[in-house]
């Protein structure tokens, strides 16, 4: 890995050059918060942002996406025969300024879409055609807990390039081949001065020390799945408060559940994949009306058990959470995954109590 120096005065010009070979996506302020959006000609990402309100998972995995289409016109050759839509665009793109926690989420999600038996072509093609230019995080929010969730403000394991803000310039770690290619395309080639790596390490340590909240995860794998499932003390209060909206799941970078819907437009039919949420009763309701997760408690428990126990056991890949804190700050009824994780981690089935109950 090498480190280069990008003077901020060269940044805009470099971004412009990238447009020749990449479709660009980056943080922009819309109304009163930031989103990741396609950067139009001349538009520069707002690198002074804290983080986007909703996670940028939609850069790879859009909230609504056509996966198949077919004709409903009897005269057509593909009458009622579904196929991939022809105009899917997987030309290479670059996501600029993504935070390390959000980039780490793609690795956690990949296990779902890229399995031995089945590969999700849409997620994988979008992921593989993307270069991630991350922006290390120097001012984490009070709700951040990435360092204890397997990520971190300077986590570079799923980035192609990581930028470290040094006021008038960025120090950029070129981490992968993809990153090398992008830096070249932008014309960013100035080797950083000696000591750059140490400077990054120092910033990293500073940033990590600013993360004030944490979750305990060391016992999650050891806990009995059914004990946690039946631990009323963990679930009863959050289940009461929960209104079963989809905010947490839609804001979350690692929630991947989806619904498939057919929509007809004129003589064409489209099979559309939309994000779905385990918070919704109809997520699991059978056609007969029977619902295996019929209560609010069932659904609240499903979300946290999935992230903090089922995932842990199934993939042996840590928790399905990067500690971005979005669900904590956006939940309209203040259900806090940090508190719940700590309760699950410290639950004692003998006494049915939790040693740690808050974040």
């Amino acid at each position, binding site marked *: 890995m090498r480190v280069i120096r990008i003077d901020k005065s060269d940044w805009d010009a470099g971004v412009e050059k990238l447009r020749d070979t990449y479709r660009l996506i980056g943080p922009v302020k819309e109304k009163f918060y930031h989103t990741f959006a396609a950067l139009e000609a001349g538009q520069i990402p707002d690198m002074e942002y804290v983080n986007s309100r909703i996670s940028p998972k939609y850069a790879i995995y859009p909230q609504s996406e056509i996966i198949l289409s077919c004709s409903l016109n009897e005269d057509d050759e593909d009458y009622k025969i579904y196929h991939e839509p022809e105009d899917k665009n997987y030309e290479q793109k670059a996501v600029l300024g993504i935070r390390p926690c959000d980039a780490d989420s793609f690795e956690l999600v990949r296990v779902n879409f890229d399995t031995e038996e089945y590969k999700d072509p849409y997620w994988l093609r979008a992921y593989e055609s993307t270069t991630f230019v991350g922006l290390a995080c120097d001012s984490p929010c009070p709700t951040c807990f990435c360092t204890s969730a397997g990520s971190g403000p300077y986590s570079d394991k799923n980035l192609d390039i990581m930028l470290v803000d040094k006021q008038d310039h960025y120090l950029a770690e070129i981490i992968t081949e993809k990153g090398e290619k992008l830096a070249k395309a932008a014309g960013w080639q100035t080797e950083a001065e000696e000591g750059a790596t140490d400077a990054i390490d120092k910033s990293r340590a500073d940033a990590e020390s600013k993360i004030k909240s944490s979750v305990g995860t060391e016992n999650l794998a050891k806990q009995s799945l059914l004990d946690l499932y039946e631990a009323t003390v963990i679930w009863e209060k959050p289940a009461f408060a929960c209104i079963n*909206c989809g905010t947490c799941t839609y804001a979350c970078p690692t929630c991947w559940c989806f619904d498939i*819907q057919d929509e007809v437009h004129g003589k064409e039919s489209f099979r559309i994949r939309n994000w779905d949420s385990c918070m919704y009763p109809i997520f699991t309701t059978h056609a007969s009306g029977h619902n295996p997760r019929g209560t609010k408690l069932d659904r609240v428990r499903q979300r946290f058990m999935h992230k903090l126990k089922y995932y842990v056991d199934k993939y042996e890949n840590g928790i399905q959470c990067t500690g971005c804190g979005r669900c904590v700050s956006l939940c309209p009824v203040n259900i806090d995954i940090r508190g719940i994780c700590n309760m699950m981690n410290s639950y004692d089935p003998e006494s049915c109590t939790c040693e740690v109950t808050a974040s």
Partner: protein
Amino acid sequence: MESYIDKIKEISKRLLEEGKVDMVVGYRRGSVPTMHQPFFARSKAEVDELVWDSNCGLNLANYITDSQENIGILATGCNSRNIAVHIVEGKVKREQLHIIGIPCKGMIDRHKLSAMAPAPIASIEEDEEKGKVTISGEGFSDTLNKTEVMQENCTLCLHRNPVIYDELVAQEVAEQSKDEVDPHARVKEIEAMSPEDKWAHFDDLLSDCIRCYACRNACPLCYCPLCFVDESHPQWVGKSLDPTDVRTFHFLRAYHCAGRCTDCGACVRSCPVGINVRDFTKKLEKDCMELFGWEAGLTTEQRPPLDTYKPDDPEEFIK
């Protein structure tokens, strides 16, 4: 309103002790500023967890329906009006409830506050006497007038005191009159627009919607077992982010709340992207006022106007 808490705890403990209620529904302290968690207390120890301040802006009437238990519930003006709506609509029985009335001084707008803060807010403190709110976070500490950061619906509220209650936690607060505030100023602004501008206004309003349904689920009125957007047989609305589908959801949901909505603001407060859903509901509120002289939730004796037929109902629109 923080001064209410001792009285709230005293009443709650008494009710539980006397066996008058099985639980008291209120809030417990949240883990982030401006957000408390709806909570039920069944024991004295749990009662001690209760809090009350200007960050209790959801609607607790949302938490008492379809229950067989006896419930003590903390209720501000709007919350009590929604309880009245529930009683009229048969979602809860008056006898089941012990309403602990809270004269309300208005809730803080979490969206406005976070937009005003230069960085994420780490803590919030309120000085009730001076009417000031101090927010602080990394590198900043700002003191603001509470009136500047109140939820808009609270600034326009004409029923800050509970309309039905069993006991009050404090003396009633002074009500605002229609001479002081015009609850429908914003509606009038929109009404004055051309159809094109109106359409564009609502397009822009809803452009950030992610269809998480927080507005619907935070609303005490939205208790349908299966919402029309969730029905699949027949399917009324598509489920993608198509703007027509998004708008259909919002405007029909609002319409289902006509004459029932108390402008409690729970929909706006719960929205993760800060959409002012009240631009729909306020119009209906205004119409109900003008056409039927009706304000929702002021009585447990009468059903809302769109739920009943009277020979003298206005019908100018029928040609």
